């Protein structure tokens, strides 16, 4: 069952490269996404047996991330099909500089999307740390072509930065894994395998200096991929230049997968009694990321970059939550879901705005509520949700983390956390309102008959965000608690 989760998208992706017919290929994409989501939902009813000698197994943490990835991918694939139909294969003129460019082959785009899903799923279900590394690196390679879908120099620059910075970061993570292997070598020469559960069981006997060094390297390595400041520099470029559906997946699914890499290391730290050390590091990087996000969101003139920096900020919130430990971990786990749903929706809506207004500048967009009624409403609500306004999901999870910080007596952390959130709310509310209201400029073509899926998919995600804020299904709460328990 677990192997199917990986194999279905991998095979479909490999086939998609060679399917010439657009129709067939789109059907392939949708059916693979549907089948994969169905299986991952089934794992909530029937606990799947471990595969590959225990290397692939679904614990609570993996299950949350895996299912979230599948669901988001399903949403993204419906959006992508509509998007690709709108794009057609003809030269486009660039919004900013006016030159003509063409898109990459749709077959390669679809194939890479599916391979990307396969790699992310492998990250989520991998119980072997080295295999997890292989999978994380694979996500970089599969997603780089997605960013370079629009063939022009800015997307190329973004792709290059993404490839290089992430590859270098990930190489450090590999060194971290090797350090961990050294730490797990017993004085008599026998080694503990790199399986998460073996390491957890043996965590008290790890060589502490090596293990600490390993954690730092893993944090820096996977942190680069996850977009923790100061290693986040690739993130705004990649998110602003990728097609919106790819941005949605990068922000909503990929960052979580990289975060999972850090969580696995944190799991071992908690089991080994080093939670103080690792928690403090996570707190520092988390608060720094939030601050960097706040600084660059304030006054940001490009709304896709604004969303990207918001991702940096939310990755910071996740790190803070896990770093605080205790009840905050539950909040962080919940926030993983809330952030992913909200951010994916926002990027999809941003794609709709971009298609109609043909500019990424916040000042070029006005009257979205009248031009694109559904997307306009979603944009406004989404921005309020992501800044942590009730009654949406992110409010609940951010509040849980704040409350935990106060309960633990970490007043300073709580104050900084709250102050940064306030700054971001103020910085994002202005542009959001200005973009939604007002009268649209004359150059804006009245939205022609655009596919319903382009607004229906984000609308569904938006409903999910709202529901998450009001009602948590008990089964979800149970699994999240289980996941949080692994992290102390």
């Amino acid at each position, binding site marked *: 069952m677990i192997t199917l989760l990986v194999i279905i998208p991998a095979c479909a992706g490999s086939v998609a490269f060679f399917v010439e017919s657009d129709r067939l290929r789109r059907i392939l994409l949708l059916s693979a996404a549907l089948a994969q989501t169905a299986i991952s939902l089934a794992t909530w009813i029937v606990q799947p047996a471990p595969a590959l000698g225990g290397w692939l197994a679904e614990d609570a943490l993996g299950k949350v991330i895996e299912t979230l990835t599948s669901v988001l991918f399903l949403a993204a694939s419906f959006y992508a099909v509509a998007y690709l139909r709108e794009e057609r294969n003809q030269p486009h003129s660039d919004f900013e500089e006016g030159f003509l460019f063409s898109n990459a082959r749709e077959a390669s785009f679809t194939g890479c999307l599916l391979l990307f899903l396969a790699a992310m799923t492998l990250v989520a279900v991998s119980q*072997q740390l*080295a*295999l997890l*590394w*292989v999978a994380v*690196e*694979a996500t*970089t*390679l599969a997603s*780089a*072509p997605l960013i*370079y879908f629009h*063939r*022009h*120099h*800015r997307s*190329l*620059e*973004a*792709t*290059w*930065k993404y*490839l*290089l910075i992430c*590859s*270098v970061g990930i*190489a450090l993570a*590999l*060194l971290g894994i*090797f350090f961990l*292997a*050294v730490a797990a*070598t*017993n*004085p008599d*020469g026998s*080694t503990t395998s*790199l399986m998460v559960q073996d390491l957890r069981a043996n965590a008290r006997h790890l*060589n502490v*200096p*090596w293990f600490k*060094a390993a954690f730092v390297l893993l944090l820096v390595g996977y942190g680069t991929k996850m977009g923790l400041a100061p290693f986040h520099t690739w993130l*705004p*470029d990649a998110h*602003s*230049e990728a097609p919106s559906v790819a941005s949605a997946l990068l922000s909503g699914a990929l960052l979580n997968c990289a975060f999972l890499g850090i969580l696995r290391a944190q799991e071992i730290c908690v089991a080994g009694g080093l939670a103080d050390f690792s928690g403090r590091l996570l707190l520092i990087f988390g608060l720094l990321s939030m601050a960097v996000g706040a600084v*660059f969101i*304030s*006054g*940001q*003139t*490009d709304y896709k*970059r604004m969303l990207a920096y918001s991702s940096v900020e939310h990755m910071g919130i996740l790190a803070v939550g896990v770093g605080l430990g205790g009840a905050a971990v539950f909040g962080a786990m919940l926030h993983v879901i809330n952030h992913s749903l909200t951010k994916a929706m926002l990027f999809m809506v941003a794609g709709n705005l971009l298609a109609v207004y043909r500019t990424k500048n916040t000042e070029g967009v006005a009257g979205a509520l009248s031009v694109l009624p559904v997307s306009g409403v979603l944009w406004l609500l989404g921005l309020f949700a992501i800044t942590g306004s009730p009654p949406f999901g992110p409010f609940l999870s951010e509040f849980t983390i704040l409350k935990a910080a106060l309960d633990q007596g970490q007043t300073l952390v709580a104050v900084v956390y709250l102050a940064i959130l306030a700054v971001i709310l103020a910085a994002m509310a202005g542009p959001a309102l200005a973009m939604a209201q007002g009268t649209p400029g004359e150059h804006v073509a009245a939205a022609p008959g655009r596919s319903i899926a382009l607004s229906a998919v984000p609308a569904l995600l938006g409903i999910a965000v709202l529901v998450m804020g009001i009602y948590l299904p008990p089964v979800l709460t149970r699994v999240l608690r289980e996941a949080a328990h692994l992290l102390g």
Partner: protein
Amino acid sequence: MSQLINSILVLLVLTGFMLLSSSRLAACIRAIAIQGMLLGILAISMQDGQWSVAGVLLPLSSAVVKGLVLPWLLFRAMREADTVREVEPLISYNLSIIAGAAALALSLWLGQRLQLSSQPPSSLLVPAAFFTSLVGMIVIVSRRKALTQVLGYLALENGVYAFGAAVALRLPVLVELGILLDVFVGVFVMGIAIFHISREFDHIDTDKLAALTDQLR
């Protein structure tokens, strides 16, 4: 055996300096190719006594990929990019070598400080691995060509691999293959990106890749 290992490690360090001091792209690619092959030999010679089919085939395939296939790819990228075949560093070659010497000192110091539970066959193993990684980082930050940045990435990766060999890490075959495949595909994708960069910009200098910045009010 430790004579052989020592010689390989010295050569590894020398290729690091070759990478830092060469002004020709071709020489840099060759340095990386030599490194790849040296690492293959190192991994084979590290397991004296306990030969296994996987233990020989894996380093061999890694040597072939890193020593022949990737350099060939990079040479092709260099020709197709039709770029100026000088490295054009941001800092002078002398400064690069001095940085390399500092990196060497740092790695020797680190190698002395970090205590391994099992004694490696050569005291130079861990320092040489760290040094190679550090050289990779120096090259990535101090060179402006996209191609040299890939070379730096490969050196970094080689250093990590050498560290794995140094601590006699026995990773499962599947994982080793996965890592090798990732490196291979990574360089392959980077090679394609370089090709596109050269077509789009007429050069592969990454300091011209500066269109994407934050415009804050």
